[in-house]
């Protein structure tokens, strides 16, 4: 009885204390994806941009903290919103036949569990299982664009660019909320923005030595008839139409290019643009990707495969996000060395001892796989040091390398989806924004620069963490916004 009274009083106190926050938190759904793609490109975009997989079931294993009654069935509320989106098609897999046959659909939902169409507006599904034996059921969600909107957008995009009218964009989103009665127990949201970005081939950027021939991301500062523009977003593998770019006048003029298998190219002080049309700015993407050496110290017995998997994923993530950075591991198995165990310890508290030891290579990245029950940490004492514990996930090392190269967490920044590698938690992080790649490359105290892996123009960017060297106050502070991003990669 005493326990119930204590719990009841705790409920009362906490409900009172948090009453002002509840409404805000209830509507707060982190974006799983946040796409921004040119309306004119949508015909050619890879299909996976418009396909997602959403597991059926609760986020926590007890499903619904403090919920009444016996948890049996869930309902889904699916919202398709925004002019660019026409519908979402759901196909459930691993759903037992009797449950699939018993599902009920309302609102804009029509069809069956194998092929369910949710038109614009809100549709709902009831009768989904809270839990199944074995793996959870999954819905494949395919998003369809409104064809009439697409055609209209392409026309308007060209007309607006030719008339030098300011850019405009439309947005849409798909939200899936899973409910037990009135209690939301899981959620998923994907957002799309479709800016009009048609740039005819009048002035142009021509990329050369694009190692993988991929569609590179380009951020441009320049002058247009509307005035100075900053971080204007472009994409292309070779010749990129720029429309009409004018002579610099009083505007900053520079270009940053991000491409698979090539180092980030920062071209400051561009003088190629003139007022007449027909200008070409050539950008040579040599050298190829910058490879940072990583000394991987295997203190924990049997940690080789984890370390290898982590390095592999770091290479995949950094390169496929066009950061221009890769990692070359050098493995050191010190698991039988008592001296290594004592010196390296299991966290940043040992960083000072490590720095003065033979278990550290100065001026290069060092990753320590230790026997501590934590995920990972990058050490402020020397950003070249990261510890990886026994409960890390396959993105932990890539995340710590991000800190090493000056990146901070992106938690709470609504411009970043929960899949950003620098979110301070999560299990499915796959993305870096170009604004982050810029900092890892160009920020003065990034280990890429302080270790000498990169030589080139540097900047003193905001939204960064302290590094191994102090940045001169005279260093140029012009950097793209952290969330600047040209999609898709």
């Amino acid at each position, binding site marked *: 009885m005493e*326990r*119930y009274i204590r*719990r*009841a009083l*705790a*409920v*009362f106190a*906490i*409900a009172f*204390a948090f009453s002002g*926050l*509840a409404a805000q*938190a*209830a509507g707060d759904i982190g974006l799983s994806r946040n796409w921004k793609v040119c309306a004119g490109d949508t015909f050619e975009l890879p299909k996976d941009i418009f396909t997602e997989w959403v*597991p*059926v*079931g*609760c*986020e*926590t*294993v*007890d499903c*619904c*903290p*403090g*919920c*009444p009654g016996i948890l049996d069935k869930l309902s889904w509320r699916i919202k398709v919103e925004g002019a660019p989106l026409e519908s979402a098609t759901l196909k459930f897999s691993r759903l037992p036949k009797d449950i699939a046959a018993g599902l009920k659909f309302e609102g804009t939902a029509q069809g069956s569990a194998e092929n369910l169409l949710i038109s614009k507006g809100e549709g709902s599904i009831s009768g989904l299982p809270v*839990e199944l034996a074995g*793996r*959870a059921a*999954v819905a494949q969600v395919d998003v369809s664009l409104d064809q009439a909107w697409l055609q209209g957008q392409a026309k308007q995009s060209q007309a607006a660019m030719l008339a030098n009218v300011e850019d405009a964009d439309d947005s849409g989103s798909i939200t899936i909320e899973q409910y037990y009665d*009135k*209690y939301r*127990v*899981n959620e998923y949201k994907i957002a799309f923005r479709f800016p009009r970005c048609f740039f005819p081939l009048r002035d142009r950027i021509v990329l050369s030595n694009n190692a993988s021939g991929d569609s590179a991301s380009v951020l441009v500062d320049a002058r247009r008839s509307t005035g100075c523009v900053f971080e204007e977003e472009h994409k292309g593998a070779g010749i990129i139409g720029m429309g009409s770019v004018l002579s610099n006048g009083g505007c900053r003029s520079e270009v940053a290019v991000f491409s698979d298998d090539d180092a980030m190219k920062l071209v400051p002080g561009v003088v190629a643009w003139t007022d007449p049309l027909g200008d070409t700015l050539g950008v040579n993407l040599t050298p190829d990707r910058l*490879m940072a050496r990583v000394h991987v110290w295997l203190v924990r017995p049997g940690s080789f*495969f*984890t370390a*290898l*998997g982590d390095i*592999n*994923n770091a*290479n*995949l993530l950094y*390169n*496929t996000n066009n950061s221009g950075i*890769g*990692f070359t591991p050098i493995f050191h198995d010190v698991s039988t060395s008592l001296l290594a165990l004592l010196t390296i310890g299991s966290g940043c508290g040992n960083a000072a001892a490590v720095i003065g030891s033979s278990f550290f290579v100065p001026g290069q990245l060092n990753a320590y796989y230790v026997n501590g*029950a*934590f995920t*990972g940490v990058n050490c402020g004492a020397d950003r070249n040091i990261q510890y990886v*514990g*026994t*409960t890390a*996930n396959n993105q932990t090392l890539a*995340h710590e390398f991000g800190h090493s190269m000056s990146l901070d967490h992106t938690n709470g920044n609504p411009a970043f989806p929960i899949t950003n590698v620098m979110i301070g*938690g999560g*299990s*499915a992080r*796959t993305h870096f924004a170009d604004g982050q790649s810029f900092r890892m490359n160009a920020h003065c105290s990034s280990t890429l620069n302080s270790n000498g892996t990169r030589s080139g123009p540097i900047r003193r960017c905001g939204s960064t963490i302290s590094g191994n060297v102090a940045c001169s106050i005279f260093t140029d502070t012009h950097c793209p916004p952290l969330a600047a991003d040209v999609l898709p990669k």
Partner: protein
Amino acid sequence: MKSFKQMWVAAGVALLVVPVLSAAADLSPELSLEIRQAVVTWLECEECTDGELDALARYGELAVPTLGAALERGPSPATLEKYRMHLESTYQKMVEYSRTHEEIKLDQSQDEYVKMYLESYRANYAVRAAQALGKAGGREATRYLDAASKRKTREDVDAAVQEAAKGVAR
């Protein structure tokens, strides 16, 4: 007279406590959501330097059943599936990528790769749940920790449970 007075006091206490008791059984949807989000934020944080555990501790014993369930059973099937799909997709991308990039060395099968990371993921849930229960304290938290300390799992999980059980305010 004394018993009459005691009866009034008892009735007063009952009037105050009964509505609160029913609230304990049924948290509001908003509060339930907040607790879930606070629990998941803690269970999944990377360095956990942004006050995640303190934010969770504000909910006191209300978060204990969810933490206890995470300690006993790990991530939910849906959460586990999300990570599994991510791992499978990553492995497939690495296979594709390794055809043109020799720095990728795939020395494990997809099943081995997925299993290795899923085990760490489950362990992370158990370790974090134990740490939060240790901080929450109280009879329920202690019960979950004591039960977990009798199970033998991974060395790192067992150590975290033992440490939390040792330090819990009973």
